[in-house]
């Protein structure tokens, strides 16, 4: 299951050189605690970009 993304790669097809997320990377994307931390960080980063743009 965790390696499902790898199974989509077709040898010498156009996606052969793609990187694919492993189980840990996929887990982090939906881990509520980690994502809450990222939420705070992304918001701060976005606010900095917004401030620099005005």
């Amino acid at each position: 299951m965790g390696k499902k993304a790898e199974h989509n790669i077709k040898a010498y097809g156009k996606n052969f050189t793609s990187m694919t997320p492993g189980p840990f990377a996929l887990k982090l994307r939906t881990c509520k605690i980690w994502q809450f931390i990222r939420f705070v960080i992304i918001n701060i980063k976005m606010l900095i970009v917004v401030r620099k743009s005005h």
Partner: protein
Amino acid sequence: MARLIVLGGGVSGHTAATFAAEWLGSAHEVVVVTPNSKWNWIPSNIWVGVGEMSKEEVTFDLAPVYAKAGINYKQAKAVSINPEGSESSVKPFVTIEYTLAGREGESENIEYDYLINATGPKLNFGATPGLGDANGLGEFTVSVCTADHAVHANEEFQKCIQKMKKGERQKFLIGTGHGLCTCQGAAFEYIFNVEHELNKAGVRDMADLKWISNESFLGDFGVGGLHMKSMGFAVSSKIFAESLFTERNVDWIIGAHVNKVEKGKAHYELLDGTMGEEEFDFSMLIPPFAGVGLKAFAKDGSDITGTVFAPNGFMKVDANYAAGAYENWKASDWPKTYQNPTYSNMFACGIAFAPPHPISKPMSSPNGTPINPTPPRTGMPSGIIGKAVAHSICDRILKGEDAPLHEASMAHMGAACVASAGKGIFDGTAAAMTIYPVVPDFEKYPGTGRDTDYTFGEIGLAGHWIKHILHHLFLYKAKLKMGWTMIPE
């Protein structure tokens, strides 16, 4: 009393008009001319297009909001501008044609002291045979560019889901419908929402999804791609995009100019000059954009449309339109004040201003067909530019005609983009990205053209929550509810 007319009540024009009304107060008049009775938060049309939101959730009536703001609202479309007035009128004026129920087709001239053109794009479906015609979207594909289009897209999408539930395999083709399209980000977001919904409906294994676009590489997005800071590397958006497409098992065709669409089939030409065709059961192809076709006339009635507007119909502003080949392009080619070079009381903002040139490198097939994205002007830049232009005009009205103009160059401005996949609070993810600056400055940031401290992207629930917040925040702001001026564009 001075009168400012804003043409177009979309993202950029609404921002400009509402701030101008706030800053000018009742001593001066702000008029908005826009053909629509409702305001639409266009980014959420994506969710309407997969049945996760209704049209009502992404639109609201403009009339009560403009009444509250003291804005004189004309539900009409602008037809022409007389920036020098006419034989019978000393002042410049705009000719409008009402779309308001009961007054359809009625025409009126309105004089102005200052004019903002924020008419956005004409959705030029007619540029690709079969994609549509002069009347708009054709019958073979769907669109999510307007709320009504998105409602129709969802109806067709649900039919496909029903067919798959009955065991019939379906092919989905999503992307851009012409070699010179922009707005790849919207199509990108739509294909991953479709993929998410197919999973949710339990029919993903019955669907073949394919992306088709005019980008020369996946992840170009009309901004020549971007390098994002990730895991200690400056990683190209190509790597990110290819990874996402592979992970979600979405195939792709890039460098494609869709030159004809018929029932269930799209014909295309590739950058290498080869021709191909792709069959589909469901297809959402973004049309190319053009100016809305406003005309301009001199005092003696002669046609000066070519002086005021670029050949693509967008209004000329303070950009360098003579930059020439890609090798000569500079960040400083991009406009700063958005003032028309011929008529100083006329400005353009949002998609309505004529960019100096694309951002992505121009390319063409050996047959001479140009195939490259045209420059996007997304929500954040459109809002910031609208506000800056309103600021300049208000200063000139309140402080005098020599007041300096405010600047908002896309080469000094960033953009935040969130492309969702799904809508539930915990079952969706989104790619959250910032890009700074939108237009790369290779002199200031050698190599990538961008500041990689402020250009980043990642996929996860967090971006998804931000997308939800943005939806509610921008609708709240556009309705001018308490504290709206504090919410950034």
